């Protein structure tokens, strides 16, 4: 840092010559401060692993968004069976090697049905990402509001909310969802065939995951608010007659972006895994609707005869979750550089 001459203050107060000035001033250009967010972005840019994870994540999101376009190009939809690709003589296993990977079917075909695996994976990615992000958004919003309320109000509000959080965190989430999902779906049977509408199933899935995830965010935010509200800038705001809402949303919330963003980034892969696990167990998305968890469940029956069928969605799920986790870690390192790397 360089020392620079500042203009004499109007009062003629002692000049702060001994103090380092933030940056040299070039003539004519307005000084804009580097905001904490911008500094975090610079740190991410310099982190190769995080940038790679970021690129992979963006790629996955693009593929999910462009799913209809991609399947139009290949010419096979997720539930269009290709009878020629499977061999009835071998028990409807794909013709050719590596699970029927060919120019027509880029990732092979599903044994038994003859569905194009590429189309099923591309559409399954939509489900995974939608459930992962939607439940993370929902749990984060609820968690932030509950955490702010508990941390700032204190007293009985805090006691009640904290006990609810403890209960939610102590719940056996997976067991509960497995038990509850059929009940909810039965109660909401809507479509003509007496089954549950696919969108409704997804909604139930998102709600179920979010219900058990918000408590993590809430507890994190509550802890942060408890320490932040003792800082003197909150007293300073009170002295300038700031109301409760101003203090909560203008003073405290901007300081919570970092931990909230980190918990969001780490919740997405967690939720994707949960969704896949639930679909694997048959309480999430059910075939013939495309989903990675359901694919893995189906593939596990044939993995001796057709290992590629298990391998392809398995590896893709691994890459997606790994990329999202690494991205989350990178975001945490960038936003909170002082936290030691685990």
């Amino acid at each position: 840092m360089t020392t620079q001459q500042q203009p004499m203050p109007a009062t003629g107060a002692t000049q702060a010559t001994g103090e380092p000035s933030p940056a040299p001033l070039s003539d004519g250009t307005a000084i804009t401060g580097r905001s904490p967010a911008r500094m975090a972005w610079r740190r991410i840019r310099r982190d190769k692993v995080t940038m790679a994870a970021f690129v992979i994540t963006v790629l996955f999101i693009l593929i999910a968004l462009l799913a209809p376009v991609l399947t139009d190009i290949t010419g096979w939809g997720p539930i269009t069976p290709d009878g020629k690709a499977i061999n009835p003589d071998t028990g409807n296993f794909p013709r050719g090697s590596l699970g029927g990977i060919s120019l027509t079917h880029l990732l092979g075909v599903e044994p038994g049905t003859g569905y194009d695996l590429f189309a099923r994976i591309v559409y399954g990615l939509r489900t995974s990402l939608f459930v992962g992000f939607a439940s993370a958004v929902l749990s984060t919003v609820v968690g932030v509001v509950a955490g702010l309320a508990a941390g700032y109000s204190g007293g009985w509000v805090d006691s009640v909310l904290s006990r609810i959080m403890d209960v939610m965190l102590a719940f056996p989430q997976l067991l509960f969802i497995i038990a509850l999902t059929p009940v909810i779906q039965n109660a909401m049977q809507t479509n003509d065939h007496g089954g549950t509408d696919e969108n409704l199933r997804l909604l139930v899935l998102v709600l179920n995951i979010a219900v058990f995830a918000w408590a993590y965010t809430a507890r994190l935010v509550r802890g942060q608010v408890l320490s932040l509200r003792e800082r003197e800038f909150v007293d300073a705001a009170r002295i300038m007659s700031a109301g409760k809402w101003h203090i909560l949303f203008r003073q405290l919330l901007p300081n919570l972006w970092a931990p909230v963003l980190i918990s969001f980034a780490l919740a997405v892969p967690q939720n994707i895994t949960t969704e896949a696990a639930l679909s694997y167990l048959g309480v999430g998305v059910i075939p013939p609707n495309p989903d990675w968890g359901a694919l893995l469940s189906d593939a596990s029956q044939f993995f001796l005869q057709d290992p590629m069928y298990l391998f392809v969605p398995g590896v893709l799920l691994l890459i997606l979750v790994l990329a999202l986790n690494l991205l989350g870690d990178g975001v945490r390192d960038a936003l909170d550089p002082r936290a030691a790397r685990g």
Partner: protein
Amino acid sequence: MSTTQPAAGEHLLEVSGLTKHFPIRRGIVFQRQIGAVHAVDGIDFTVGAGQSLGLVGESGCGKSTTGRLITRLLEPTAGKVVFDGEDITHTPENRMKEARRNLQMIFQDPYSSLNPRHTVGTIVETPMRLNDINPPQGHKKRAQELLETVGLNPEHYNRYPNEFSGGQRQRIGIARALALRPKLIVADEPVSALDVSIQAQIVNLLQDLQRELGIAFVFIAHDLAVVRHFCERVAVMYLGKIVEVADRQTLYTGPRHPYTHALLSAVPEADPDAVHRRERIRLAGDVPSPVDPPSGCRFRTRCWKAQERCATEEPPLVRLGGNAEGHLTACHFPEEPSVEARAEDIVLDPALTTLEDNASAAS
């Protein structure tokens, strides 16, 4: 600088019998109060318009609590705070707006008193926006003027606090306090977190502002030298009570309360070879717990002049015989108004006594 007292009724701030007890509770579900920390225990003082009053004392004597009671960051347990002719002791938060416009605060820690996610401009503008003050030149221009007033580059408007040093941050805090053109600023140890080299700059800045803008100050500090430089009147606190209050000259050269003598004697001498040696008083032990303060005079447990009467009768804060106008002392057996060296040093600390005896025996 004049040390004359404003006549009664002209006081900007009048504090009487101000008390703050923090309850100590025990129990998980059914909490019961088992005691209280007597942080501030019935203090009276006044500050005239444009005047500066220093509050000094050891850590934990209640000076900061007093500052927070005046600005109503804390709710007083008892007593009265009259600011600008209005009793604000228990004014509800939503009607404090008017008073707070004229009553601002500068905080101790420049690192926690500025929101790290707000730009300097936002920090200085927020008080104006919250109080619907629309200066004719616009918020931004006014904020930049304020930055210039406190000696910062107005182009730093868009920067974040983390880009500034402690002294510069404290200047931002001062600009924020000035934004509402207050009549009184409570400065809670505004320089104790800063490097010594920066302290003088900040104190001089505050002094210039006080002179030019006519702002009254309640200046809380434990550094006697800083208070001597800044304040026209000084009040010495001990364990939640004011033990002595006087104008600067009188307090520093002719104190009457033994505790004031001890405090002044603890300030290191700039010139050890000075012709007039000062008295030497070394106290023993710690400040007693404010949960259960001593009866009578609170200083009696550490006072070398304490007698039976000090334990039974609390000395009132009054003008003693021989004291100047406005010089109040709370002591039954006051000292002579002088800080000259005595025939014999008062060393109450047994460790120090042993050490010095050994040293003299050896030599």
